[in-house]
């Protein structure tokens, strides 16, 4: 066992997420957890493990199997003094709740000129690569970055997961917090035992570089880091890797600054290309750093197809090979 400094624990991402909820539930008794199987079962990924034992069933609620019901009642709870954390069992099962998210959770502040507000976090495991059945692997963050009134957050490691989730729970407005399933148990990092938060809307520089910037988030950060390590062994150009962390609002300053420096960009995401967040990133670059761009932005993304059943999911996902090809392409100019 590696030694861990005092006040730190080695946690997986899913543990860090539980820890964030526990921390906030201890501090603030308005915080509730609701969802399918989140109580007695501790969540199908164990993300809510132990919470019902500590906080009881008034605060950790096994709901009926109905996503619109979960979000809709949570709007009522939120407006009336609570801070619901709603778990969607998988991101691909959020669709039945779309109306409640789009027309209520995110518009209530506007519609009531601030009289009623909806402090709410919607958590959802997302992404391919864990051999899950159909529909379970969707990566549809871009549907939500287009929803006015919603922040969208995607952590890539245990430390960020805890800090970003705490910030999301403390945010006075609805936050969609998507969790890359592939990272749930793929590694442990040191996580402070105490409360801390990472501001929403701020990207993290995972690796400093000078010649090309890779923008990515979630599970793709790991893949990108690995691909870049390998690639740099045989190339002299140095890559900067930026983990966007928050997908709405994007960290415009971080994007601008990096593009002004490197002039070359690769975006990596697992969602289908068309309509993906890559479009927003390219759009921000267009606005903020157009004249610094030396080459077309390269995109390494999922296809414009449904996320496939698992026999084909590795083909669908961005791979080191594809990231490498994009680097080569963007550096050609």
């Amino acid at each position: 066992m590696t030694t861990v400094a005092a006040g730190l624990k080695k946690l997986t991402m899913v543990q860090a997420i539980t820890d964030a909820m526990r921390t906030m539930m201890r501090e603030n008794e308005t915080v509730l957890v609701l969802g399918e199987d989140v109580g007695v079962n501790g969540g199908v990924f164990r993300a809510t493990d132990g919470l019902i034992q500590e906080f009881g069933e008034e605060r950790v609620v096994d709901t009926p199997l109905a996503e619109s019901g979960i979000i809709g009642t949570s709007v009522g709870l939120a407006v009336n003094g609570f801070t619901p954390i709603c778990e969607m069992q998988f991101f691909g099962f959020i669709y039945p709740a779309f109306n409640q998210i789009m027309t209520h959770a995110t518009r209530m502040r506007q519609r009531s000129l601030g009289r009623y507000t909806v402090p709410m976090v919607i958590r959802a495991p997302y992404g391919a690569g864990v051999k899950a059945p159909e529909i379970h692997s969707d990566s549809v963050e871009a549907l939500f970055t287009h929803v006015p009134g919603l922040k969208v957050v995607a952590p890539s490691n245990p430390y960020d997961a805890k800090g970003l989730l705490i910030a999301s729970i403390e945010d006075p407005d609805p936050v969609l917090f998507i969790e890359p399933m592939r990272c749930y148990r793929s590694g442990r990092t040191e996580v402070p035992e105490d409360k801390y938060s990472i501001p929403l809307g701020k990207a993290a520089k995972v690796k400093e570089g000078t010649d090309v910037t890779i923008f990515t988030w979630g599970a793709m950060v790991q893949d990108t880091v690995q691909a870049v390590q390998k690639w740099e062994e045989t190339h002299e150009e140095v890559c900067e890797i930026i983990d966007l962390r928050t997908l709405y609002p994007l960290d415009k300053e971080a994007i601008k600054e990096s593009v002004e420096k490197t002039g070359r960009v690769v975006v990596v995401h697992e969602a289908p290309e068309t309509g993906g967040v890559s479009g927003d990133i390219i759009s921000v670059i267009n606005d903020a750093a157009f004249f610094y761009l030396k080459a077309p932005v390269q995109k390494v993304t999922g296809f414009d197809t449904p996320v496939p059943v698992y026999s084909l999911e590795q083909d669908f996902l961005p791979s080191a090979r594809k990231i490498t090809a994009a680097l080569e392409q963007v550096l050609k100019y």
Partner: protein
Amino acid sequence: MGADNQFPVIQYVNEAGSLKQDEVKLHKEQLYQFYFMMVRARMMDKKCLNLQRQGRIGTYVQYEGQEAAQVGSALAVEDGDWMFPTYRDHAATMSFGHSLRNLFLYWKGRLEGSIPPEGRNIFPPAVPIASQLLHAAGAAWAEKKKNSDRVSIVYFGDGATSEGDFHEGLNFASVFHAPVVFFNQNNGYAISVPMEKQMKSKTIAQKGLAYDIPSLRIDGNDILAVYHETVKAVARARSGGGPTLIEAVTWRYGAHTTADDPSKYRDQQESEIRRKTTDPLLRVERLLKNQGWWKEEEKERMEAEITKEINQALKEAEKFKPADIDELFDHVFAEPVWPIEEQRKQHKRLSREGIQ
């Protein structure tokens, strides 16, 4: 199956204005209060309709004919309770304390129109059909969690029962034993679609059987039935007895909205007949007459008072500060985000230039 037979229409006062239930004690003041609130609601509705025709407000949603259902149920809830109206329920919200000025503002396309008076919990009218049932369940559940005795009342139409959210709302309320009154106004139509095309069940009340929610079917044009049965449902909710589903059978005289032409789908003669038979105001008038309590002057006095109130409110609404685009930008998030701030700045710069 005969599930519908389990739900006969509950009436307290029949069309002729005779009392049908022995236990009810009539109070002259209360009857006059009911009558006043219904007259006020009807006059407000007429005013809005006229304003819409004059182009002084936008598309308007009428409720004429449904006053007993809305007023009677709204008077059954109290301070601290939560009300979840639809676009058609301003007779309910105004009876619960929403200001007439704000109602005018609402129909002038102003966000301020949805803001209830301080201390009155009224949600902005729900537009996506049936979505509000869940909010009502959630807000009521919150009261239960706080160990308060406050309740929710939520309005919805016959058409709304077809949406998934109706089902999920009733099921969540049932499972969590939330103190909600689901108040259905069955006015027979969802725009052009009559109830027979909306469902095969003969009643809406029977839908409560699916959730083991106590349900009843009442004459929605009989304000005594509406008031007393809603009071019972509210009392049950307050005392931990959980939700109730009330189907109030009623009728809208007019079009679905001012953009609708009902002659396309029904014979408006029906409404004319009903004005003389099942009208909710007429019924109280007849009851008052039967009791020997009717005073024609009292009615005139009321109308004069209401006219004044409405005109005053309209004046305030019409001289209300113009809509300010900052309202839009200011209330998306508590803390501004940069895309909206940039859009605000750009918009203002261009607006200023445009004026110069």
